[in-house]
């Protein structure tokens, strides 16, 4: 494969991992729903145990997403993590407190008390989803950074990639496009969380409440999602001249990407229809299958959004401070050799998905109920 083909292949893998991550954030969404859905401590325990059996898959997907991004587009890693420091640190803090909370929340002598761990889980659901959405929003709106490799030869200030604003990433939250995507991801994760509970929890009252709440979450989601889509399709985008690699602003760039890559809007629309179908099944039919439709829909929609950001001569991580510092899948990628090695490794992915699927099915053969968790001394 040519270097460009490898770069495109890896952008597809990153897009796939990103979209899987958003789907799997049903765990985070579920965490924010518990206080609204559960009326008793047993109900709370049931919901936390339902989401809790999946938390580490979401966590692992995030870590793998980070690792894969590092390996395939290391200059993004260097620029975004080192630059948008505060956003990433907040996201990571929210995952640190999540990782212990399930295991420790009901254990005797847990030092902080069950309520604190439940609050940790709520914070993770709120902060991680919104901030990850905001970071992905900057793929379309840009950030204030500069890149100069010759800084390596300077004394003192020799960091090649530098953030130029004092807020180190927090400023992205003030941008309407970023914020609308952040809130869209947050509300979507709540939709997916509710659908997962409907699928996995054997408790009529909880299913009823989840399907009711689903309707409100869906309205909020549609508002933020349509706002984000409208803003990026009607606004300017960061185009790259394929000959000179010069980055320039282009009106309706992302709309042009849609038109020039017709498969992308097809994936996008299929995804949106999937999400809407899932919502309908959960909200009106109380069907457990809603999560699969909305889940597949989420994966397709987010996948198409990533393609929109990175393909068709577009900068996927643009700089508004210095356009020519913008990162593209060509200038930010690993070398051809590394991408080739990693491509062989990526052949493992279907095998990984296969065993995840098998173990998921084995554990989820029957829904979980109160009796299950009361008899299980490993329960959260």
């Amino acid at each position, binding site marked *: 494969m040519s270097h460009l083909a490898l770069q495109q292949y890896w952008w597809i893998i990153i897009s796939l991992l990103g979209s899987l991550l958003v789907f799997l954030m049903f765990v985070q969404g579920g965490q924010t729903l518990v206080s609204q859905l559960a009326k008793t401590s047993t109900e709370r325990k049931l919901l936390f145990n339902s989401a809790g*059996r*999946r938390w*580490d*898959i979401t*966590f*692992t997907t995030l870590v*793998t997403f*980070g*690792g*894969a991004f*590092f*390996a*395939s587009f*290391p*200059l993004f*890693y*260097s620029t975004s*993590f*080192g*630059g948008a*420091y505060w956003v990433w*640190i907040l996201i*990571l803090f929210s995952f*640190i407190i999540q*990782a*212990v909370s399930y*295991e*420790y929340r009901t*254990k*005797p*002598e*847990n*030092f*902080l008390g069950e309520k604190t761990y439940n609050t940790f889980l709520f914070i993770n659901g709120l902060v991680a989803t919104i901030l990850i959405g905001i970071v992905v929003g900057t793929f379309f709106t840009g950030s204030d950074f500069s890149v100069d*490799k010759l800084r390596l*030869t300077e*004394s*003192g200030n*020799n*960091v*090649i*990639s*530098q953030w130029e604003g004092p807020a*180190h990433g927090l400023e992205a939250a003030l941008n309407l496009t970023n914020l609308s995507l952040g809130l869209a991801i947050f509300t979507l994760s709540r939709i997916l969380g509710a659908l997962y509970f409907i699928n996995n929890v054997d408790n009529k009252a909880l299913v009823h409440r989840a399907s009711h709440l689903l309707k409100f979450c869906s309205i909020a989601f549609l508002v933020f999602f349509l706002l984000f889509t409208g803003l990026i399709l009607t606004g300017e985008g960061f185009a790259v001249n394929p000959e000179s690699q010069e980055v320039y602003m282009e009106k309706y760039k992302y709309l042009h990407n849609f038109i020039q890559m017709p498969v992308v809007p097809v994936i996008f629309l299929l995804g949106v229809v999937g999400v809407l179908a899932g919502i309908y099944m959960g909200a009106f039919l109380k069907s457990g299958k809603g999560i699969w439709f909305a889940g597949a829909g989420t994966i397709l929609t987010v996948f198409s959004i990533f393609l929109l950001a990175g393909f068709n001569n577009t900068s996927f991580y643009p700089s508004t401070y210095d356009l020519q510092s913008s990162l593209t899948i060509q200038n930010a990628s*690993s*070398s051809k050799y*590394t991408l080739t*090695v990693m491509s062989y490794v*990526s052949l*493992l992915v279907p095998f*990984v998905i296969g*065993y*995840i699927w098998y*173990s998921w099915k*084995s*554990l989820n*053969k*029957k829904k979980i109920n109160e009796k299950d968790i009361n008899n299980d*001394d*490993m329960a959260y």
Partner: protein
Amino acid sequence: MEAFDMSLVNWSRAQFALTAMYHWIFVPLTLGLSFIIAFMHTRYYKTGSEKWKNTTKFWMKLFGINFAIGVATGIILEFEFGTNWSNYSWFVGDIFGAPLAIEGIMAFFLESTFIAVMFFGWNRVSKKFHMLSSWFVAIGANLSALWILVANAWMQNPVGMKFNPDTARNEMENFAEVLFSPTAINKFLHTISNGYVVASLFVIGISAWYILKGRHLEFAKRSILVASVFGLLSSIFVVITGDSSAHNVAQIQPMKFAAMEGIYEGSEGVGLTTIGMVTPGKRYDNNKNDFVFALKVPKMLSYLANRNSNSFVPGINDLIDGNKDHDIIPISERMENGKLAINAFKEYNNSEDAEIKEGALKTLEENYQHFGYGYLPDKKSAIPNVPITFYSFHIMVSLGFFFIVLFGAFLIFSAKQKIESRKKWLKLAVWSIPLGFLASELGWVVAEVGRQPWTIQDILPTMVSTSHLSTSSVQVTFWAFVALFTVLLIAEIKIMLYQIKSGPKNMED
């Protein structure tokens, strides 16, 4: 090249050390306990005995408590390479990112998928699939150690790559060299076997406590038997891999090796210090003795370093000032060559003239092995902290030999069925639990403090690896991590102690 913001460098360093050391409290236990649990689970699968089932469940519960905080402290490490070491990520991301990604794809998913089955599969999946899941968790955890240690080893011994002046980064040329470098293999084997030792000490120590209290005797003896066999084999393996690791360090990182042994003046037929005290205030440029006192095994260090008991082992002074007889270039010359390389890199990028570019590239390639030295403010800065490296190394080694004796003794007591009467040994075993963790942390200190000032040996110093952040930002996150991790550690210990005091369930013995 002198105006580095050392306070930012040192706070970034402190934050990484803090998060890594916290993480490293929990990981060794996960590495070893996962195999002990898988073995016990297999015994249950084969015998159908409820005793083995409850034994497995008890250790699994402690494993879960430890695993959660291990994951919590681990996520930050991967991302810290970006958040706090932006230049590092740029400079070597083409090589360093790959093992991290492979770790996620190959190891973390295996571990996290099957850990859910292991914990919640008791009445939900077939007994065979359930038992296999315990093995997959152990394999996943140990595979993850493989990849992160391959990455770490590459920083200590950068092989299989070439610097590309067009992209200002090192690019991978040979993945097999990275994966199978002797540093990587030694580091992986030494580290995982250390994890098995920590876990065996943990199991024996807790079981010993039950025996001292006269509780769960059969359970405790069963656990001690499994752990003492596993521990004895592992602790012997730790010494073997420790020997080859030290030999490798002597060849690749002679300065670290000199610091580990506190040697300033190199010589032939050097003895190995078993017990010693480094002279306070000893520096490379004063004439104080190396040690206040030192008990040495004659010629042993020369043998350890070069497999020849009469060979020359360079000291810190030889490495700083050079030693013509042994072809050691002085640091000052390496600093000059490093500056030549950095300037050639600049010239290559600034010039449009093909001839000048070619000349610059040639100079850069000829001097690239010294690249990082061009950033050092003075020759002293090439020396790591000697007392910390020396004491960490020697305490770790002493503990390693003590563990062999302890495991051997417990195996004999188990075989003779005389454990209950050995009260002093039982108490010693309880107190050895923290010693296992201590030895493990000290190993990390030797590896990481001993290689300073380098993030990439000879190529990139720590001071050029940071992100462009204010010191106060890193200070805030440092203290936030101190607070959060300490609170979580207290919670973990309290939960763990409660579970241990409660003891295994459904065990009448």
